[in-house]
């Protein structure tokens, strides 16, 4: 089984869908985060020199995915950064699920990154987090750009 998170963006009429797959829930969430960076620019162009720590908690997996992506949107917006590497752990918390992550990235450089559009927020549209019949985890939603 491929243990590396896989990611893709998918078409939505006005915006962009982001999808991650992986052997674990955390890997699928990491893939969705890479896909969100891909909605903005080519993730391969984004370095991984600076680290940011993120924590969030939610009553269920799907809300946790939104909280995770929205935490990244917030960090991108307020730090003027893009992220390319994501390490996270997800475990049961007091009121549902808890996520702790370290993410790596670098400050936005328009000439280098060629960012197409900023992500305004992650949406409930096409939101799904589930384990597929092959055992792989899938995490996806549409992000508003």
């Amino acid at each position, binding site marked *: 089984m491929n243990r590396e998170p896989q990611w893709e963006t998918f078409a939505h009429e006005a915006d962009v869908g982001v999808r991650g797959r992986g052997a674990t829930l955390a890997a699928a969430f990491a893939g969705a985060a890479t896909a969100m960076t891909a909605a903005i620019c080519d993730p391969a162009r984004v370095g991984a020199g600076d680290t940011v720590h993120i924590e969030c908690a939610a009553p269920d997996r799907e809300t946790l995915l*939104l909280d995770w992506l929205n935490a990244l949107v917030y960090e991108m917006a307020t730090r003027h950064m893009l992220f390319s590497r994501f390490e996270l752990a997800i475990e049961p918390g007091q009121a549902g699920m808890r996520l702790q992550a370290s993410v790596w990235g670098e400050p936005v450089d328009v000439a280098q990154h*060629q960012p197409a559009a900023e992500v305004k927020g992650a949406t409930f549209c096409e939101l799904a987090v589930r384990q597929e019949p092959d055992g792989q985890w899938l995490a996806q939603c549409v992000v508003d750009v």
Partner: protein
Amino acid sequence: MDLNKLSQRGEFEWLLPATGRMRVPGVIFASRELIAAMDEKVREQVANVASLPGIVAASYAMPDAHWGYGFPIGGVAAFDADAGGVVSAGGVGFDISCGVRTLHTGLKLTDIEAHKARLADRLFARIPAGIGSTGGIRLDAAGMAAMLRGGARWAVGEGYGLHADLLRIEEFGCVAGADPAAVSEQARRRQRDEMGTLGSGNHYLEVQVVGEIFDPLAARAYGLAVGDVVVSLHCGSRGLGHQIGTDFLREMVLAAPAAGIALPDRELACAPLKSALGQRYLGAMRAAINCALANRQILTHLARQAFAELFPGVELPLLYDVSHNTCKEETHTVDGRKRRLFVHRKGATRAFGPGHLELPREYAEVGQPVLIGGSMGTASYVLAGAAAADRNADQRAFGSACHGAGRAMSRHEAARRWHGRAVVDELAARGILIRSGSSRGVAEEAPLAYKDVTAVVAAADRAGLARRVARLAPLICVKG
């Protein structure tokens, strides 16, 4: 969209009968061609909106309707608080009070031809655009609260523009009932260095020329003549509005079961108007409207500075400023009775007709200017709000019209088909100068990725939503 599911009420009006959980019918205004090209999701979303508590009359979709979140983009719905009505964070969306502002320049095309490239460069240098760009204003806590309460009125007080500007803005530049205390710390933090920034994606500043007049009387009232150069801005409430949308969508989805609301789609997240959460959202959303109005006022100031560098003494008075992602409390006549309603316009423009009390005096006879953005290679339009069919009826769709062309193709597909450099070169060959830091951003916004704005506007006109007044052709486009 499958036309068999709809019944045609007029050449440009289609009825989706109320079935199942729908409390009211759906009404879609569009030509046969436009409606046939719409995604089935638009019909689904119109029907879902029609099932929300307290909805009045109908769930409407404008000619540029496309698949949105919960509400279709181009959706209009009004709710009555006394009938258990709701306010929906999904019905307003993330880009709260995104809108268009058009400025006169007093210049003719012949005046700027020789200076076009320099003007494009000056505007690109002055207007912060794109990811990572920051504005020159930093607000402390008191300044932020004053801005959120005061909107464009606050900005004028701070020296960004003139009092006369306020007379040409919806709500005269400041929506009442904003509650800065309902705005989260994260939302304020996201706005800290984004005041006076354009954003990215489909946001732009364009220099345009009036190419054609359709309604000479309204054009005269709006001060438009063929060959006039105008400036149009398309942007919204920036990070603050985006974060308010994020905060309240989540909270409303999680609170819906306890409020007894069964959401057909979580993105329709809403709360009763008569609830603490509903009132808190209204306070925060109105603060975001004021933030958008302040932002467009600051950008106006920057555009004026750029023009003054090349054309000393030139003034850029407002034609008008419209917002197209809002929920506003308005009085409308329904079945001959005046009612106070909360009108959601998601990707739809307010289009009050002649004689409406909220119009500036000089536009009272012809109706509200309705500013429609096109793509950077096609055209934009100025329309005028249409009159009601008779005295006892309300204006169509609570006085609303379309807001733009609407995408015909996903960003994904557009970026696959075109290269930004080629798009810029092709437009330059047609005399349209693009200034953007991102080649991929230009490709995703390629003109052919959008529907034909001319067909959308013609449908709005023929459906009786708003009359065509003028077509604006792009000369310069600054994008993020």
